[in-house]
């Protein structure tokens, strides 16, 4: 690892912490003990991170919420990367007809700003975890597909690809031996960004009341609940938010660190952008 790669170190540290939190959340007792006498207790050394309106320990809820956020967004990321790679490849290098169809498909899906499509899908399907994953994945794959399309379109004019084509290599061989391996590093960066976005999307949907199975712990629901007690117990919504900021920062910094690692001459900044 490059010694000066500060971003990657901090990012990986944050991700390590997140992994541990998620693991602890998975192993933790999911039946949350509640004690109404302790409701609204603020954070302190004795109370840990404080208690919510029902006297459930906030730390406990954050742990279980971390596990929920992690598995939902990991699943979403895997689906979006796969779809993005397949459709992006089809849009860049497929036969003419397939190119036209997949490009227009990407364009149409990109026509829905933000979480609009996810809200639309989540509002008409039964509220459960499958819907949650499906609706976020349906919005998330387009960015990945456009990215793969642009990068593959650019790479396919590189001399070594031209050479392989001149030797008579088939499209499948060129893709699997020459193009996709080149994409691997960039996809890792995309995965890191996608995880951060998926965690935020999950939280936003849960916040709006469109989350997964009833009874699921999610940081979005936690913040939303805390909103009703903002004055007397601000910690209920503020503390999960701090975790959010840390996690999204960890993913952003990891992506940026990876980018530096893979392309040390890059002048690109923190913004995800592909330029010729």
């Amino acid at each position, binding site marked *: 690892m490059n010694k000066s790669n500060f971003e990657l170190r901090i990012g990986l540290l944050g991700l390590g912490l997140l992994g541990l939190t998620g693991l602890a959340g998975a192993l933790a007792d999911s039946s949350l003990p509640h004690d109404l006498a302790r409701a609204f207790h603020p954070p302190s050394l004795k109370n840990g991170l404080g208690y919510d309106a029902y006297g459930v320990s906030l730390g406990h809820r954050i742990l279980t919420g971390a596990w929920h956020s992690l598995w939902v967004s990991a699943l979403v990321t895997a689906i979006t990367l796969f779809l993005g790679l397949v459709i992006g490849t089809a849009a860049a290098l497929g036969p003419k007809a397939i190119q036209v169809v997949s490009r227009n498909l990407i364009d149409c899906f990109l026509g829905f700003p933000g979480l609009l499509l996810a809200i639309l899908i989540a509002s008409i399907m039964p509220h459960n975890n499958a819907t949650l994953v499906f609706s976020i994945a349906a919005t998330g794959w387009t*960015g990945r597909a456009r990215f793969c399309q*642009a990068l593959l379109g650019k790479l396919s004019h590189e001399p070594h690809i031209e050479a392989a084509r001149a030797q008579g290599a088939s499209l499948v061989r060129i893709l699997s031996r020459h193009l996709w391996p080149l994409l691997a590093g960039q996809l890792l960066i995309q995965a890191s960004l996608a995880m951060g976005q998926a965690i935020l999307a999950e939280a936003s949907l849960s916040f709006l009341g469109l989350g997964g199975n009833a009874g699921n712990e999610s940081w979005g629901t936690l913040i939303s609940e805390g909103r009703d007690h903002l004055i007397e117990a601000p910690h209920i919504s503020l503390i999960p938010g701090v975790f959010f900021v840390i996690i999204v920062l960890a993913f952003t910094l990891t992506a940026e660190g990876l980018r530096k690692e893979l392309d040390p001459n890059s002048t690109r900044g923190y913004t995800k952008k592909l330029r010729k």
Partner: protein
Amino acid sequence: MHFLGALFKSLARCIALATGIACLVFFVLHLVPGDPVELMLGETSEPRQYELLRAKLGLDRPMSVRFHGFLKNLVHGDLGTSIASQNPVARLILEALPYSLLLAVSVVLLGSCMGIPLGVLAAHSRKKSFQLFSWVSIVFVAIPSFWLAPLLVLLFSFRWPWLPVSSFDHWSGLVLPTLTLGLSLAGYLFQTTRVAVNECLSSDYIRTAYAKGLKPSRVLFRHALPNAIVPVFTVTMLQFGHLLAGTVVIETLFNWPGMGKLLHDAVLQRDYPVVQGTVLITAMIYVAINSVTDFLNRFLGHNYEQVQL
């Protein structure tokens, strides 16, 4: 490029995309598993009531007839009637739209006035002290709006009671939502601008300009900025489109009566025609704004590539 040529191309793309989006919304609503009527009535509904609502929504007709009717009504500007309030959906949207527009304009103004000049400065001076701005901008982008909003409310409405939590008939109600969204937009535009200006400043024609003996300020304003502003302009316009639609969470939080709040309320009340109409119109507006950006870029002859969203 010629004016008419650019106009024609952008318009054609806009119309094609709008048609595609209309079809997509229709098929998502009608093909995705899940029964809207059952969701609206709850599981304990009587069969008779169920049939009535189904007929009212036109769901008992065959798919092809529904699709035809949907497109025909859309062309006539008829988006159906709200189930909750019995108002035409088009009127509800027309009432909400100015509020969303107001919020989006003020957020874009705040974000670009803060982000773009600082980004240019950071790229131009290359001083270490600007590293601080970079870090601040990453934090601003990373902070989720649904967390920043309660924080700002706590600080500026309760701790120091300067501003109302929610008020839409006085300018002071606009301040907190604008700040919440504007800060993260400023961070994002800062990064975009810095990268774009940096990239321009490291190209060959800038070296030539310096070699001619031009002053650094002249190089920046005459040679670098006109080129660097293209991606920044495009990103700003895209974000504007996003804001018109993607502010569901913030509008709900601050009770701001715009499109996002309309959508959220409709989702909660299971007001299915309103959900469909709002999503459709928002996506159309977004596509229209993108097409205007596309047209301006084409017309001004900018050599730009399809912007990544």
